[in-house]
């Protein structure tokens, strides 16, 4: 059991989630344009990650945690980077349309899509031509999504106090969940920002390819700092409402849990060795194990589960269609089954359980898990409440912007082609050796 294994499992889960979501969203005809767009974007977010996670796992394995540049690390590392260049702008695009639409006119929508396209193309061109460079502005999307979703959260939570039972609290919660999905892995190291700890300020983003103290590193850490700030603001709002009204919902508790784990992480990292390791790795067994139980668990279990909740509970899936219903159920079962296997793998890491025994446990837990999952699925699926429905009588209701079916089709086709092209672009980066030689811009 290692971080590589968990990342591979995360890749598998992301693939299931991405493909099945694409299928169901495509069949969901009742959706408003922003919900449909959000459904497709979420699907492509996970499809992009279904390529990048296994690549990261393989690079970790062959480079022994990013310490030995063993071929063909360049190819798989580039492929991971290139697919992340789609993932990050997609998250930004998602923040522009969901849960409330920032793009409220056709013109704004065009500008939003143009910014998305430019972000992707700019990054890809810089990466393929000069390798890692500060021009890429890696982390920019963390800043943008944090500002948007945190603002949404605070606005709708305050509004919910004044006008309860109008669904504002749920809109706030979707915003917090989406921020958690995108930047939650980073919330575990929040203490380090304020204690000036090495594990935060020495974090190596790209296998030591960036010069230490470079603008790339600064900007990346700035983006992480702002995402941490967003989480703290959400937590502070949640705690304040708890103090005033005596209520804290599940999302507030989840954010609080992440932040408390962050406090434990601080002491775990302080007890460990140095921390200038590559983003995905840890340097000794305690920090490595802790990473698996926090960051890697977020990638493997947290992200897919959050996405499932949003897709099912907030009406992006049209579950009135029996075919959609059964496919969504299958998707939930797959995610629960694979996530359970991942949890068992993690337990096996700290408890001396043999593989045969853990396989037995897996069987038992799966049987129980699937039964539990069916009940949960029924509960969520029979009471979905869409964002459109919640905001229908509010000034926040998503304005009508006629988007043809072909536009969605072209969007999907373009992203599929992009992912195929990344396979060849990664090869170009590999043979040109641009990552090692660099472009001299670092």
């Amino acid at each position, binding site marked *: 059991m290692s971080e590589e294994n968990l990342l591979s499992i995360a890749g598998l889960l992301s693939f299931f989630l991405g493909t099945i979501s694409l299928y169901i969203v495509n069949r969901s005809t009742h959706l408003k344009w922003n919900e449909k767009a959000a459904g497709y974007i979420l699907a492509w977010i996970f499809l992009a990650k279904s390529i990048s996670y296994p690549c990261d796992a393989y690079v970790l394995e062959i480079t022994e945690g990013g310490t030995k540049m063993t071929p063909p690390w360049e190819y798989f590392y580039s492929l991971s980077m290139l697919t992340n260049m789609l993932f990050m702008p997609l998250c930004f695009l998602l923040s522009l349309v969901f849960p*409330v*639409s*920032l793009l*409220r*006119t056709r013109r*704004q929508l065009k500008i939003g899509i143009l910014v998305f396209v430019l972000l992707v193309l700019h990054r890809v061109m810089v990466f393929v031509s000069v390798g890692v460079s500060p021009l890429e502005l890696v982390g920019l999307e963390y800043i943008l999504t*944090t*500002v948007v979703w*945190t*603002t949404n959260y*605070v*606005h709708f939570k*305050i*509004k919910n*106090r*004044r006008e309860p039972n109008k669904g504002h609290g749920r809109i706030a919660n979707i915003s917090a969940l989406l921020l958690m999905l995108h930047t939650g892995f980073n919330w575990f190291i929040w203490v380090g*920002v*304020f204690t*000036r700890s*090495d594990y935060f*300020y*020495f974090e190596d983003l790209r296998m*030591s390819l960036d010069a*230490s*103290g470079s603008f790339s*590193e*600064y900007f990346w*850490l*700035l983006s992480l*700092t*702002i995402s*941490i*700030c*967003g989480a*703290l*603001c959400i937590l502070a*709002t949640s705690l304040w409402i708890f103090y005033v009204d005596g209520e804290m919902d599940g999302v507030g508790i989840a954010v609080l849990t992440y932040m408390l784990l962050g406090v434990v992480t601080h002491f775990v990292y302080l007890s460990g060795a*140095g921390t*200038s390791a590559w983003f995905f790795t840890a340097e000794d067994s305690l920090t490595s194990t802790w990473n698996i139980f926090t960051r890697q668990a977020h990638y493997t279990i947290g992200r897919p589960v959050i996405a499932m909740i949003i897709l099912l509970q907030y009406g992006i899936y049209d579950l009135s269609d029996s075919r959609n219903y059964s496919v969504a159920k299958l998707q939930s079962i797959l995610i629960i089954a694979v996530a359970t296997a991942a949890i068992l793998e993690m337990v096996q890491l700290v408890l001396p359980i043999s593989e045969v025994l853990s396989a037995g446990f897996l069987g038992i837990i799966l049987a129980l898990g699937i039964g539990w999952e069916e009940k949960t699925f029924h509960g969520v699926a029979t009471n979905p409440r869409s964002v459109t429905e919640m905001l229908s009588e509010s*000034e*926040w209701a998503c*304005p009508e912007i006629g988007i043809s079916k072909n536009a969605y089709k072209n969007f999907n086709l373009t992203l599929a082609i992009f992912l195929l092209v990344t396979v060849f672009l990664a090869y170009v980066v590999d043979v040109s050796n641009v990552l090692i030689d660099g472009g001299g811009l670092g």
Partner: protein
Amino acid sequence: MQEETSYLSLVFSDEDSRPYIFAVLAVFLLTSAYQTSVFYYFKSEEIIGKYDVPTWDVSFESADLSEEETQIVADGTTASYFLDIDDSNVMENSYVGLLNVVVSYEETSGNFADPCDFVSVNLRPEGILAQWDNQSNVLSGSSDQCTDILLFVQIYPSFDGSNVTVESETIDEALSHWSNETYGRGELNLEVEVNTQQRVEGLPTQQDTDEAVTVSWRLTTFMPTATQLGEE
């Protein structure tokens, strides 16, 4: 109508939430300013040097262990001298570096005109882990002039007693090359052969039948310590 409802106007039109949103934005700005000051000022040097590998000066505190043994070796025979090296004669945290052997003898018969005997020695390359193929080693020698025979064995690789400079992340890594206990532990066997000599055949005063040969073992052990260079 669509032009009127921009996102910003919707967010900031709500008087209840507006101050909180401004507070959130202020927190973003303040924390970013703090992070920037840490990155470019308070922790700047540490961040720039985070990949620098520390340099260590490794020095050795040497100690010599001496042992001496004298045997009467009969003419035409070979005697074995043994040296046992184990934890009892090597101090804790010390390692075996070098071995010097001095084989000495005199003409002890006291007979008139009896010349020095011919003594040859051979240190068998076995019994301990050492650098047996090292060019500096002297594993055998002989004398017929009653002069000392000097032997030498390089036991620990690269050890000559002088300081070395290494680059490594930690002090343990810096000392890792110098902490192998397996070198030099075991038993050495030095074979000494004596052949008595006569200057002129038939003179009874020149004849003797054996010789006292003394072997002095000098084992150099060392205790390594590392000091980080450039650390104030």
